[in-house]
């Protein structure tokens, strides 16, 4: 028996949904969509949108507050940082690198992790053991050491950051994929397919992977928050995105003393940008997951 054959309304009743989630949810999804669209736009055409070049210093105009405060300057809507660079322009330019680095790392670690996890969970045996030991080994290695070593070999560059973030993140997908595969593998319908002689890869791709996808998407959207924050941590330690490239994480780490001492805008606006990006991605990912839920397909 399968849920697909049962009518949607009945399913809804049996699965205990109390209210139709589309009404309030829709509004939030639309906002998230718009927000993300703005952010992506910033990433695509920063030079057109930003009023000033992001690295233009005017050290006599440093630490100007946002224009609506006293001492503020209308040429610098969100104020300036400690080198007199326009904050609004820097926030706009920062979108590109944060999105690129964030997504690249996410996609790379996701693909590697899910593949490894699937293999480990499906074939079990010594392959499983070795792979999981590899995961343990990887987790035990401090990401700082990895970052410094990569820099020592390649020299400081933005590629390092993506590599470190990607290498750091695959384990979670692998363990998840492995766990779910282990469960699913033992289920009757999978056993049935195997008994019928269906090829392994078909089983994996057609039956196990779709069931995995929902969980993976949720975890991925959760991970994105972590990746963007990790980028900021790397900047905190001096191992992150290199100037002149502008990144939100760098701005946050750089300006953190100002949180306690006066020029709060230097840290707040990049922080809001990060929060807004992560929130909208998470909301959209949730929505996507609901859409993809095979239980409700007719």
């Amino acid at each position, binding site marked *: 028996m399968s849920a697909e054959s049962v009518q949607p309304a009945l399913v809804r009743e049996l699965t205990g949904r109390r209210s139709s989630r589309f009404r309030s949810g829709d509004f939030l999804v639309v906002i998230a969509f718009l927000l993300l669209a703005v952010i992506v736009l910033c990433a695509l055409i920063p030079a057109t949108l930003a009023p000033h070049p992001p690295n233009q210093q005017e050290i006599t105009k440093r630490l100007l507050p946002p224009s609506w405060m006293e001492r503020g300057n209308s040429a610098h809507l969100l104020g300036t940082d400690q080198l007199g660079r326009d904050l609004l322009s820097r926030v706009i330019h920062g979108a590109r690198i944060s999105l690129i680095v964030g997504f690249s790392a996410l996609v790379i670690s996701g693909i590697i992790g899910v593949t490894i996890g699937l293999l480990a969970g499906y074939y079990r045996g010594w392959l499983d053991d070795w792979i999981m030991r590899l995961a343990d080994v990887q987790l035990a290695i401090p990401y700082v050491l990895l970052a410094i070593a990569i820099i020592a070999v390649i020299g400081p560059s933005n590629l390092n950051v993506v590599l470190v973030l990607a290498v750091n993140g695959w384990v979670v997908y692998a363990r998840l994929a492995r766990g779910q595969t282990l469960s699913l593998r033992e289920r009757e319908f999978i056993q049935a397919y195997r008994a019928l002689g269906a090829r392994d890869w078909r089983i994996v791709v057609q039956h196990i992977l779709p069931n995995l996808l929902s*969980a993976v998407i949720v975890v991925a959207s959760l991970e994105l928050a972590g990746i963007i924050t990790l980028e900021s941590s790397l900047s905190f330690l001096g191992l992150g995105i290199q100037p002149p490239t502008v990144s939100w994480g760098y701005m946050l780490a750089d300006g953190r003393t100002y949180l306690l001492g006066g020029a709060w805008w230097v840290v707040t606006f990049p922080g809001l940008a990060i929060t807004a990006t992560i929130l909208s991605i998470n909301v959209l990912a949730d929505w996507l997951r609901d859409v993809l839920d095979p239980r409700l397909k007719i």
Partner: protein
Amino acid sequence: MGRYIRRRLLLAVLTFWAVSTIVWGLLYLTGDPVAILLAGTPAGSTDVEQLRHALGFDQPLPIQYLHFLSGAVQGDLGNSLRSGEPALLLVSRRVGFTVQLALLAMTLALVVAIPVGIVSAMLRGSLTDRTLMLLSMVGQSMPIFWVGLLMIAVFAVELRWFPAGGAGGIKYLFLPAATLALYPMARIARLVRSSLVDVLNQDYILAARARGLRESLVVGKHALKNAALPVVTIVALQFGYMLGGAVITETIFGWPGIGLFTVTAIHERDFPVVQAAVVLASGMFIALNFLVDLLYGWLDPRIRFS
């Protein structure tokens, strides 16, 4: 069962070996420790050579590696290049602080996250659910040093409830633990909710309800146990990360755990200390994974015997 344990032990040893070798290799990639030790001093090249020889760094790499291995097997991971003390001893002084912090932080996180996640899942689609999940998302998007500095500004400087930093008693532990707990708390809450929702949609739950079982029994007995699987994965991962040392929290609060200690040793290229720290951390991971695998087996009996 005995064969299983023996196999796991063998794999644990192999993991140790792999980790220390990789770290050893990475350290060598990062530069010359002797030149760094003597940087900015009146030392000349002869001094550097002499020190290199005295510390054994002038021998060919394979010999150095064998030397390291033979020592490691006997429990001697070498002496710190900076203080001369045994590396393992130095690291062991800090482990206690890390474990305390990790335990309190994870406890705080779970105590809040699990109920929040369950409530959200059961009330899914409602305003409560939406609000709780929004708060979680926000909690997850705040960089940890922000959170830490804000905690200090509010709870230490303004309210004087807790000390602003340092160690030496339980009152120093609260703010760092609360800071460290925020991200896992949010993450686990969301995960509990989503995996519970997933499970609650599945066939056997449908069947249980169709049989007329009480909702609380449905959720409590059947759903939770199966929803637990991915949650356990993430909790273990987070806890492992905390044990590895939460560098930023430790830096912000001056909490003398292993994270900041290891990063400092890496910065100073104090090879033996980095080795010792990593070996200790991987030991804890391996132990943790062992427990998690046992837990998997209990949660889903089909996995237990392959």
